[in-house]
Every structure is written in C-alpha cells, then in structure tokens.
C-alpha cells in the first residue's frame, strides 16, 4: 500500500540512476521501505571500517562528504540524487571511507534486502552498478565523472580536489625527450609523434642547447625553408631560456609572457650550464590554474543558476584551505575571498533580476552589511543585506517597495542555496525594515544617531559597515553624506557607539585565563567572535567614523588608515591591524577544521602555541578599549 510520502520518494528517485531504469511498480514498492534520515551538520553517517549497514543511501537534500578518516581532504561530495555506501553492502566488506554530513542533510536509506533482488533482475541496474564500481565513483553517468572516463578534464573536477595555488610550485613533465644537434628533422618528427609531445630538447654533452617545438616544424620545415633531411641544429631555437625547477605558477606565467614562448626548460640550477631536469609547457599551467581565483571568478560569471554557483563555492572553500595551509598573508587572502564572495552575490542578483517578470521600477543599490560589508567574510557565515531604492512619488512608494521586497526575498533565498545562512535577526533585504527608499533610509539612520539606545547602537554598528555590492553607488554615497552630517551635529552619538564597543565581555579573567561561556549550547567554549573580534571591529568602526571616513570598511585597513591619520598612536593601531588579521585567520582555520562559522572554540583542542598567540591579542584589545573609553569620554556618560 503506497502513501503520500512514499509517492513523494518515488517521485524523487525516478529522476536518478539506477532508479530511473526501474518500473513504476517496483519503485513504488521500494519507496515504501525507505527510512528518511535527517543528519545534522558534521554528524557521521558511517565511519571507516564500520560494518555495513542494512541500508545504502541516496542524498535527497544537502551534501555528504566522503573522506579517509584522519585527513581533512575530502575525496568526494555527494549531492542531491547521488548514491553512496552501496558497494560495501554488495561486497560484504566494511566501509572504506567515512561519510559525514557536510551540511544539514536529508537522506533516503534504502534497505539492501529489498533492493538486491531488483538489481539482480534488472539488467540496466546491474550495468549501472558494475560501471560505477569499475570507475570507482558514485555515479558513472554524472557529468562530473564523464571526464574521467574519457580522459578530458572537466570543470567540476578542478574545483573539487586539487589545491594548486599561484604561489605554489608547479608540476612539470620530467620524462624528457631529447635529441642531438646533428639528428635529422625527419627522425625528430617521428620521435615527437611517437611520444606524443609538442617539443623536443636538443642536447650537447648532456647539457641543453636548444629546443624544437611544433611551431618550428611548421614555420621552418613545412614551408620549405629547410628540407626534412636537415640537422636539428639548423632549426632549433637557441640559446634556450632556462629556469630553476622551484618555479611557482605565477613566475612561470610571467616568464612565458615576458619572452613570448610556450615552453620553459628547467635545469638543476637554472642556468644553461647544468643538466635539464624538466620541461614546463603552457598546458601544464592551464591544468594547474584549475583552482586559481581568476578561473573561479570566470566560472562564477558564467554560472546561470544557484546550483552551479554552489559547486563553485565548494571550490572557493578549497582555495581558502589551501591559502591557509600555505601561510599566505591574510590581507591578500581576505581580499581574494571577499572578491569571490562579492562576485557570487553579484551573480545571484543578476540571475534573480533576469528571472523577475518585470524590470525594477526604480534605481536601487544592494548593500552588504556586517562581515561581508567589511570584506572579512572568509567562511560562509550569515547574510546581512539591505536595499536602497531611489525616491519615488508618494503614491507609488508601497508598490515600489513590495517589488523590491520580492526581489530581496528571491535573492536571499538563492544566497541561502549557495551557502550563506539566513540572518537569525532577519536583517535582510527581504524584511521591510531593511528595504527603504533613500529618504526613508536617511530618516532611519538619523533616528539611530539622535536616539542612541542599545538597540539603535547595535543596528548602526551592523548597518554602518555597508558596502555596495550591486547597483547605483551614488545612492549609497548620498546616504553616507547624510549620516556624517547628522553625526557631526550630534557628536554624542560617537560616545554611545564607543560605549557599545566596550559592552562586550572581557576575554580573560584575573589570572589571564580564558573566560569561557557559562551556559547554553556553547557551554565551556570560548566565544572568539564576541570576546575578541567584536571589540576590535567595533573600536575600528567608531574611530574611523569619527574621522568621517566611509570608504574603508575592512578592519585591518581601517587601523592602517588610523595609524596614518594619528601618528602618535601609530604603534597601537598597527598592533590592532595585526591582531585583527591574526584573529580572523584563527577563526577561519577553526571554522574550516570543524566546518562551521569558527565562532566558538574548544580550548582543550588548541595547542600551546595557538593559545599563546590568542592571548597576545588580548592585550591589544584592552589597550584599544581604554583608548576609546578616554577619547569619547564614555565614563562621563555612564555616570
């Protein structure tokens, strides 16, 4: 007997192999036996070496990461419709990989005892299974693996595993094909054809003296300039340009561009006086750049739906992990990642706009606030955003707003799909309090400035880090002017903003111990965001706003600017700039490690060095707090 839920399951399964080759009746029967499992983020479905379950799994929603335990390297991510955990059941083996919920996931668990008879009976299902195990992938029909079967690299693969960076040494071919100066051109061509290479190295006394590429053969031999019986020496390019083998991707690209060549010869010490150890071709670079920001950026701009963007964003996370592993300066990293986050948001807005039935009724600006506005959003954290639209006639105001609310809702839903959580306080453009005309925004911000209660201060501290992601920049500029005008007329606002920055609880206790959370979900965890990051960020905001500067949002950059504006406090500001970068990096590492926002830290998981590093920043926090306390006379207000 079928029921509403089993019908829904059958409806889902019938779109994916191997279930798409089942008869409707069989599938209906099988669906009734399914168990629906909800997996919270980071919970384990099965672990390595565990005995096989009674069920295998199909991902209905969310994503499952497959990995070898003990390594953070994810081998595969199973997405909607992917089957996993089946092979061990058929082979009667224990699980070879660990399966963990990469995000909140709904699984359909299908009992093997009901599935096996169908698989044996139906030849197409059998073939699917054989092929998927032979290719050692979850789903041989998926686009992702088509590449592997036919030997062509596809996009999806590039994003998933390798993490080659432009600052990382590059792989080159070490199987050198060489000839002598006197070798005949015909012999050379045969050899190149035999080894399927596009260039050959000419050596003399075991040292490289020249190179012959396909291009040389085309330009100098096929045109009749030289006969095929001529010697290699006559057509080779010489002297050759050599580099040491510890070449990074960026250097290699530069070298090729500079000399306008497509092959680099690598020698032992980088000169022509030592033995050649490898050849690096343009193609090697192309393969390596699979995971470089420029390629990801291009992919983002080409994406036409949220699902595609989601896959690309997995690649961005990989890139981030790689950058942190390589200890690349965080200023640079956060710039690149923010740039990519920004581009994703922009693309989402463009897709959403294209899908709207009608053109937006007025000019508008999409603002990112909070961490994204500050360019500090490395992990996928909450989305905070707002819309400003240009002033329209009074009677059209509500109609215009409802149109933008609809747009806001669509965009924030898509952002959620690609991995930005909804803001729990609903500070999003889909909320009517965050979707105003320019005049309304001026009124709202003026109200905050003139009536600075705790709520207003909290709202301003989130809102005033806004950054234009999409649309008309002039609207935002005009709003900034209005904010500064009001703030100048009512300087007390800064005192309140400063006191807000001092509200956060102190990071360490009397004995310089970490203060951990006393209760709630995160009991005994250290709240990195609230206790250390926020005070530094808040202080930067009030200081830079008091200088009437709106163009800089990034906390580290704000401190650098402050150091420039106030040379007498330069040292403290630079220490703050350093601390904010160090803390952000710390948070990001923790977040990537545990696949969460990195906000709460289990102190017993930190090693000594990490603890000392963290503590060192506390001193800076205390110093900057006392600076703003004195400067904005917060004590007077509290009295």
């Amino acid at each position, binding site marked *: 007997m079928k*029921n*509403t*839920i*089993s*019908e*829904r*399951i059958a*409806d889902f399964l019938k779109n994916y192999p191997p279930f798409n080759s089942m008869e409707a009746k069989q599938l209906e029967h099988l*669906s*009734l*036996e*399914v*168990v*629906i*499992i*909800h*997996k*919270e*983020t980071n919970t384990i479905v099965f672990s390595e070496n565990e005995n096989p379950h009674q069920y295998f799994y199909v991902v209905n*929603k969310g994503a499952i990461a497959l990995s070898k335990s003990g390594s953070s390297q994810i081998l595969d991510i199973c997405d909607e419709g992917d089957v996993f955990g089946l092979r061990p059941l058929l082979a009667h083996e224990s699980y070879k990989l660990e399966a963990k919920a990469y995000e*909140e996931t*709904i699984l359909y*668990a299908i009992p093997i005892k009901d599935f096996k008879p169908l698989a044996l009976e139906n030849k197409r299902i059998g073939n699917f299974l054989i092929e998927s195990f032979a290719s050692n992938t979850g789903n041989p029909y998926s686009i992702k693996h088509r590449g592997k079967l036919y030997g062509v690299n596809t996009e999806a693969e590039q994003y998933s595993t390798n993490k080659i960076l432009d600052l990382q040494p590059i792989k080159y071919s070490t199987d050198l094909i060489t000839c002598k100066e006197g070798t005949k051109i015909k012999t050379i061509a045969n050899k190149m054809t035999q080894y399927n290479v596009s260039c050959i190295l000419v050596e003399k006394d075991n040292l490289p003296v020249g190179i012959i590429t396909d291009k040389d053969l085309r330009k100098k031999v096929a045109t009749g300039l030289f006969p095929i019986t001529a010697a290699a020496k006559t057509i080779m390019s010489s002297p050759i340009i050599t580099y040491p083998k510890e070449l990074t991707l960026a250097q290699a690209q530069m070298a090729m561009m500079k000399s306008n060549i497509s092959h680099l010869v690598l020698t032992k010490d980088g000169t022509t006086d030592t033995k050649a150890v490898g050849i690096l071709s343009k193609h090697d670079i192309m393969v390596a750049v699979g995971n470089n920001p420029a390629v990801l950026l291009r992919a983002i701009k080409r994406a036409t739906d949220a699902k595609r963007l989601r896959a690309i964003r997995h690649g961005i996370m990989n890139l981030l992990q790689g950058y942190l592993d390589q200890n690349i300066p965080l200023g640079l990293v956060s710039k690149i990642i923010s740039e990519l986050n920004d581009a994703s948001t922009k693309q989402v807005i463009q897709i959403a706009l294209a899908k709207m039935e009608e053109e937006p009724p007025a000019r508008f600006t999409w603002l990112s606030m909070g961490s994204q506005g500050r360019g500090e959003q490395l992990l996928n954290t909450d989305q905070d955003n707002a819309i400003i639209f240009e002033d329209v006639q009074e009677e059209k105001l509500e109609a215009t707003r409802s149109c933008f609310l609809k747009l806001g809702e669509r965009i924030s*839903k898509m952002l*959620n*799909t690609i991995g930005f959580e*909804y803001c*729990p*306080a*609903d*500070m999003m453009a889909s*909320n*009517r*309090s965050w979707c105003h005309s320019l005049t309304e925004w001026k009124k709202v911000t003026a109200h905050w400035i003139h009536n600075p209660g705790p*709520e*207003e201060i909290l*709202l301003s501290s989130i809102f005033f880090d806004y950054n234009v992601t999409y649309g008309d920049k002039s609207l935002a500029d005009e709003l900034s002017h209005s904010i500064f005008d009001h703030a100048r007329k009512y300087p007390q606002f800064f005192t309140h903003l400063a006191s807000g920055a001092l509200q956060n609880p102190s990071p360490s206790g009397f004995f310089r111990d970490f203060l951990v959370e006393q209760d709630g*979900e995160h009991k005994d965890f250290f709240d990195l965001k609230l206790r250390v990051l926020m005070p530094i960020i808040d202080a930067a905001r009030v200081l830079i706003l008091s200088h009437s500067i709106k163009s800089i949002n990034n906390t580290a950059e704000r401190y650098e600017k402050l150091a420039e504006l106030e040379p007498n406090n330069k040292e403290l500001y630079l220490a703050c700039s350093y601390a904010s970068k160090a803390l952000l990096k710390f948070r990001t590492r923790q977040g990537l490690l545990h696949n969460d926002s990195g906000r709460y830290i289990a102190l017993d998981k930190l090693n000594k060095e990490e603890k000392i590093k963290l503590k060192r920043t506390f001193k800076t926090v205390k110093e900057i707090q006392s600076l703003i306390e004195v400067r904005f006379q917060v004590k007077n207000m509290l009295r």
Partner: protein
Amino acid sequence: MWPFSQKKQLELPDFWWEYEEHFKEKLPEGVHDNTFVVLDTETTGFSLTRDRMLCIGALKLLDNNIVVKDSFEVYIQQDHYDSESAEIHGILKKSKKESISELDALKQFLVYAKNHILVGHHVMFDINMINAALKRNGLPKLKNKTLDTESLYIRTLLISTVVQRKDRYTLDDLANKFSISRKDRHTALGDAFITAIAFLRIIEKLKPEKIKDLLR
C-alpha cells in the same frame, strides 16, 4: 467525587484502556530517545462544533529517522460537508479513497499514537478537532503531550524589539524558510511530512539536551 464519573468510565471501550495504559510509562529523558508523532488533519472548516475531520495523517520520528512504512493515513466518512474547503484540501465527499468511520479512525489513531509526544503546526487546532470527535463518540480527551512547530520556530529567532517580527508563521512560511518542497501541501500526510522536516531543522537550531527543554 462526582457521583456519575465512576459509572461513565466503565463504559469506555477496551482500546481506550489500552491507550491509557501507555501513559503509566514515563517518557524517555533524551530528545533522541523519544518518538514524536507528527500529525495533521484535514477538516471541513474551522468550527469545532460544526466541522468535521476528513483525514488524519501522521508519521513517527525517532532519532532523526522516519520509517516510511510506519506512517498513518486514514480518510473518514462524514455527512457534514462544505464545498468551500474542498477547494483547499481537494477531498471530495464521494472520494475514491477508501474511507472508514470516525470511530474506527480514532481507534486506529490511538493505537498508533500511544503515549508519544504529538507534534503539529498550530497543533492545538488538530488536537481540539480530534478531541471534539472523541467527545461525539463518548470518549475522553487525548492525554498526550504536544509541541507546536510555530512556537518552536519563534524560539529560534532572535529577540529584538526593533526588528519587525511577524506574529504568525504559517506552514508555508516554514516550508519556504527551510526550502522544503510544498508539493503535497494540503494533504494530511503531506503536511505532516513538511511539519516533520521543519521540526527536525528547528531541533537542530535549538539543540535541546533533554525532552523537558522542548516541552517547557
């Protein structure tokens, strides 16, 4: 003591006593050790006295798992019929679905629900509807503890006086927020399923340790 209560109780049928028997057992303490019965009813309207239930759908949730086969779906024969609400739930009076008497439906539901916690969206409406039906059939009220997904959802939102918050959240709002497909909306079991998924996601956000944290 009320003079007639003793006599009246004796007339209750066996299946009611069996149902009551389950309540001698205490509920497990851990959230994941509890079975939740997520339910939804389709009715002819919103009046407790005039309107009738047409369908009860329910499923069981234990440790994040839903066993599809162990779900509950009954259609009920009713004389009272309101053509307006048929547009919502699409249950016509002479529906092709096999339907059973109200008493049989209640009996089967009590056997299914046992002493488990009942979960629903605006759950008190469904409970009151079932209670009204129980009363018509000379039976006492349901004894189960209940959880409402609307009030639980509101608990996941931050409390702030400045940011506007809606007072009411419909099942559609929740489905939208949690990206749950609304395909089977307005069938009892379909709505129960949407409610169940929303409930799971709310639990993940609230992270209660003990069942009493939820019931407070």
